């Protein structure tokens, strides 16, 4: 029965002999022990009667009284108990809940009238789903827990941790039969419900936090509907990944996404190379044109001016100047050339024999 282990909560360990005189139902060994002791005690008195006359019963009676008082005190002392800072204690009188005590030194009516159960109310308990943690760093996956179907009927591999603590000791103790199994069951059901309405790509990428929050809320509402007295502190997704069978393909998608970015970047690099080059080329073309403009216009002005000057001078003595210009020029031209002077009358006969190939240019005047 549930209070078999009550004694382990008793800081005074052993019960004093004979202490269970008043009750002791439900615990046959105690009754036997008590009866045996009582028989021994009374047997001694009976035995004493035959031997030493009137004195012995008085001594026996005094002794008996003393033992009874000490036994009673010891019995009462078993009701002392300490509740640690992180605990709360539930007091049960004949199994009925009468009181809940906080930390400190307390006293309850001794066993079997009252018993005390202490619970670690502030301790956050941790539960792994989808894997088992062996505490020494070894972790084993539980595929039947961690594989689940998403809304778009893909399979995803999720393991997560649920942290919970006791919200109400009374509910925790009296309303549910197995806290850990309760939380585990609710968590498994909740995560599948949440994942079942989420798309795989969202689960794997952007909606992890939402899944955590939704799952936590759902577990909490399931537990509240059981009045389990448990509050969920956090739900933390540990490992969210595609199942092992298809992980290669998922990785390929990730690298394809990078390939896409890389292709874009390479193209951008190319663009960044040729556009500034072209702009440079364009500037050069404009500058060249502007240079040309300056050159041509200034030249024209200069040459026109020169012509005007010359013309002015020429008009003062046209004939002479004309001749001078002509002869000057011809002199200059003739000085540089390789000349053959042929009389016009024989030109027709001789011309075909001239080694014209030696000359770059031939001019017949």
């Amino acid at each position, binding site marked *: 029965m549930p209070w078999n282990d009550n004694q382990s909560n008793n800081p005074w360990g052993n019960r004093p002999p004979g202490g269970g005189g008043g009750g002791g139902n439900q615990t046959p060994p105690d009754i036997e022990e008590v009866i045996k002791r009582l028989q021994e005690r009374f047997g001694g008195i009976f035995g004493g009667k035959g031997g030493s006359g009137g004195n012995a019963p008085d001594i026996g009676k005094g002794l008996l009284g003393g033992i009874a008082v000490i036994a009673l005190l010891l019995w009462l002392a078993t009701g002392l108990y300490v509740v640690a800072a992180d605990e709360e204690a539930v007091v049960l009188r004949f199994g009925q809940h009468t009181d809940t005590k906080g930390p400190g030194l307390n006293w309850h009516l001794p066993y079997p009238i009252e018993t005390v159960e202490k619970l670690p109310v502030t301790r956050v308990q941790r539960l792994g789903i989808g894997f088992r943690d062996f505490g020494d760093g070894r972790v084993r996956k539980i595929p039947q827990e961690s594989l689940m179907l998403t809304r778009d009927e893909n399979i995803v591999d999720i393991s997560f941790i649920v942290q919970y603590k006791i919200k109400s000791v009374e509910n925790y103790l009296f309303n549910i039969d197995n806290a850990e199994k309760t939380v585990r069951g609710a968590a498994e059901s909740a995560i599948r419900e949440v994942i079942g309405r989420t798309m795989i790509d969202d689960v794997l990428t952007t909606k992890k936090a939402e899944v955590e929050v939704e799952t936590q809320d759902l577990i909490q509402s399931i537990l509240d509907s*059981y009045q389990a007295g448990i509050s969920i502190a956090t739900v933390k997704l540990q490992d969210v990944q595609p199942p092992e069978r298809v992980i290669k393909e998922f990785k390929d998608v990730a690298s394809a996404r990078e*390939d896409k970015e890389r*292709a874009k970047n390479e193209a951008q690099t190319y663009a960044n190379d040729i556009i500034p080059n072209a702009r440079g080329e364009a500037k050069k073309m404009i500058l060249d044109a502007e240079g040309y403009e300056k050159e*041509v216009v200034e030249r*024209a002005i200069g040459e026109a001016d020169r012509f005007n000057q010359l013309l002015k001078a020429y008009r003062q003595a046209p004939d002479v100047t004309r001749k001078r210009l002509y002869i000057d020029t011809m002199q200059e031209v003739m000085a540089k050339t390789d000349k053959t002077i042929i009389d016009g009358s024989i030109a027709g006969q001789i011309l075909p024999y001239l080694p014209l190939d030696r000359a770059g240019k031939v*001019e017949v005047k």
Partner: protein
Amino acid sequence: MSPKLSMAGILLVVAAIVASMSTFVVDQREQALVLQFGNPKNVVTTAGLHFKLPWQSVEYFDRRLLESDALPNEVITKDKKSILVDNYTRWRITDPLKVYQVARTQTGVAARMQDVVRGKVREVLGQHTLHEIVSGGDNANLRVELMRTIQRRAHDGVKDYGIEVVDVRIKRADLPQENSEAVFQRMKAERNRIAKEYRSEGEEAAREIRAKAEKDVKFVLADAYKNAQIIRGHADAKATKTYASAHSRDPNFYAFTRSLEAYKQSITEGTRLVISPESEFFRYFGKSGK
């Protein structure tokens, strides 16, 4: 005195034994059924110290919300697919007497309840397609509704067992091995498609970026060429105008001087001239003037 004392002692012991046999404790977490030679006499649902006749015995039942986890249950869906459903049931003993009559013990009644729940799970889920069960189909709350329907029907089904079904929850609704295989194949194909899409999109974007860049280059160069030509045109026009305004003052003289200039420029070193002595330049070559 002594015989009296020993008598008192014996009485005390007997009284203690009788007292212990005629009282029993019911824990906060339990309820009890008092039996007289196997016959149910009394149901005790309040915790505390209770009395009975010494020859009566007590059967204890849990009063808490109990969990009962069954083995996965294979369900055939409406679209004739098989699915493995793992569910748990939260239930509570409401009438120890009935439980005792039906199954004697808590485990016995739990087993009977499991049978009922399993049947209801099959019945309810059998009316829906795989897709609806797994992901709710069009109705996001379908899963919740299904669980509630199963709970309600199971609750009605166990009415006579002295228990109530508080909650039935589907922990897992998984595809059996063969179907999982198909899902994996589909996932692979889908991922391959997505990967290809990404790569093609990358190629597309890259080509666009390159082409756009090349277009920009052509634009820039064309623009620049146009502007350069305009500038050159202006320059030529201006120069031509300048020349024309000067030269038109004496076109003849211009032709003369320009020709001379042209000779100078065009007849360079090494040019071979075959000249007649009758030309203007040789006017005085043969004869000493007139």
